[in-house]
């Protein structure tokens, strides 16, 4: 873990000259290079860059490998950046949760649709990316239909406003697009 934090510090230009040389050595190992890629990927996600994909880092690595490497360390900053580093590590964990959460949501949404129709399962579960968009749009209309329905249902009338929980329940997360 300590080694990894130093790679993170290297990215942030926070190492002394001696430490810097040591880290560059570390980057030459397979594990070190993997950490380097991972930290950059996390940085990209945090900045909202959407270019990342599984092969993206490797492609960039391949392109860089064919060029001479120029290493120009940033000027040494004042000590006391440890907090920033921990914050970065914490933010990276949050990013991990956010990504996992997003996929879980997508699966949940896709699963919600196929209760009991006559279609074969293959058509029920379209690719995740497009189904999210499609269902998000569909839910917008469905949400509106549900709200209109609340106003005409005698059962809903017995519940008063509480029946509206159906229209805003967690199932229509994608509602509103």
């Amino acid at each position, binding site marked *: 873990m300590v080694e990894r934090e130093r790679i993170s510090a290297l990215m942030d230009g926070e190492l002394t000259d001696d430490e810097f040389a040591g880290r560059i050595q570390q980057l030459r190992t397979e594990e070190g290079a993997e950490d380097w890629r991972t930290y950059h990927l996390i940085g990209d996600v945090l900045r909202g860059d959407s270019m990342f994909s599984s092969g993206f880092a490797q492609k960039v690595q391949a392109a860089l490998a064919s060029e001479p490497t120029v290493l120009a360390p940033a000027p040494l900053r004042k000590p006391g950046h440890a907090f920033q580093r921990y914050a970065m590590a914490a933010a990276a964990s949050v990013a991990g949760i956010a990504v996992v959460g997003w996929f879980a949501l997508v699966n949940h949404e896709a699963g919600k649709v196929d*209760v009991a129709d006559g279609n074969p399962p293959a058509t029920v579960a379209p690719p995740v990316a497009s189904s999210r968009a499609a269902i998000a749009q569909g839910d917008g209309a*469905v949400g509106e239909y549900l709200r209109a329905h609340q*106003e005409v249902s005698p*059962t809903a009338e017995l519940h008063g*406003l509480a029946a509206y929980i*159906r229209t805003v*329940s967690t199932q229509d997360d994608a509602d509103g697009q």
Partner: protein
Amino acid sequence: MSIARSFGLPRVVAAVVGGVMCGVGCVASAQSLSPPEAMAWLQRIASAARQLNYAGTFVYQHGETVETSRIVHLVDGAGEIEKLETLDGPRREVVRTQDIVYTYHPDDKSLRVERRRAGRSFPQLLPDQLTSITEHYDVRKAEVERVGGLEAQALILEPRDGLRYGHKFWADTNTGLLLKAKMIGERNHTMELFAFTQLQIGGSIPRDLLKPSFAIPATAPAQVAAAEVADTAWLIGNQPSGFHRVLEVRRMREGSSSGPLTHIVLSDGLAAISVFIEPVSRTKGMPDGRLIQQGAIHIFTRVVGDQRVTVLGETPAHTVMQIANSLSPKSK
């Protein structure tokens, strides 16, 4: 006796069990109510929801999900104003006044403004509706139980066929306010459950609790124009027995200038089914021939010619699908 027991058993057995229980001096066994008695209870529940001041927390359970929300309802000279906010999961807020419903999502600051239809189905029950309910449900008075710290009278509405769900209602014995409600499907499966866990009825309820966390727009957008009653020229070839058309309107679609949407409502007096029809071109992205379930509500959508038909209601899936699959435009 619990609805779980009475639902699965032939009515004769249920009656015998009830009789035995009363034989030993019990007062709480389920007793069938005459239509006027049944209706008096339902009317009392519906009136209480609209006429009382109350504030409380309730849970809503559907499938594996349990959600907690807070509700505040106040009535003053200007009419009713009420607020619902979710306490777990994504934040949601609904504020309803006499004629407008605001739905606010604080996380992305989106606000929807929709006009309410005038003339609600309850509590001004029509004699037809009363006949319809008692024709399709066996309404019985059950035990008195404690719910959310209050004493509640339980009522059972058992459907007489498989086209609709059963209900169990627990109403506050003093005010009639609905404290707990369960919708029951096949094999006694609970489709959804509402239950107050904490509730204050009457007394001083601070008006501040109603304060929305968003700014109420000064004027409602023009798109929420009132729906007009119309003959929509659509036929339901195989209408589920007991469901009758109670409303047929053309309404403007929210945030769209691309023309009206047809809305037909069918009801058996208690459950309602809405049919929405609009051009396919305006409903991009809606899944075809799919059944969606949202709590006790089933939603089925299909394309008929160049129109998309979406049928939804708090009924079993086959009731909704029967309507969707037999809808056709009246031939000219």
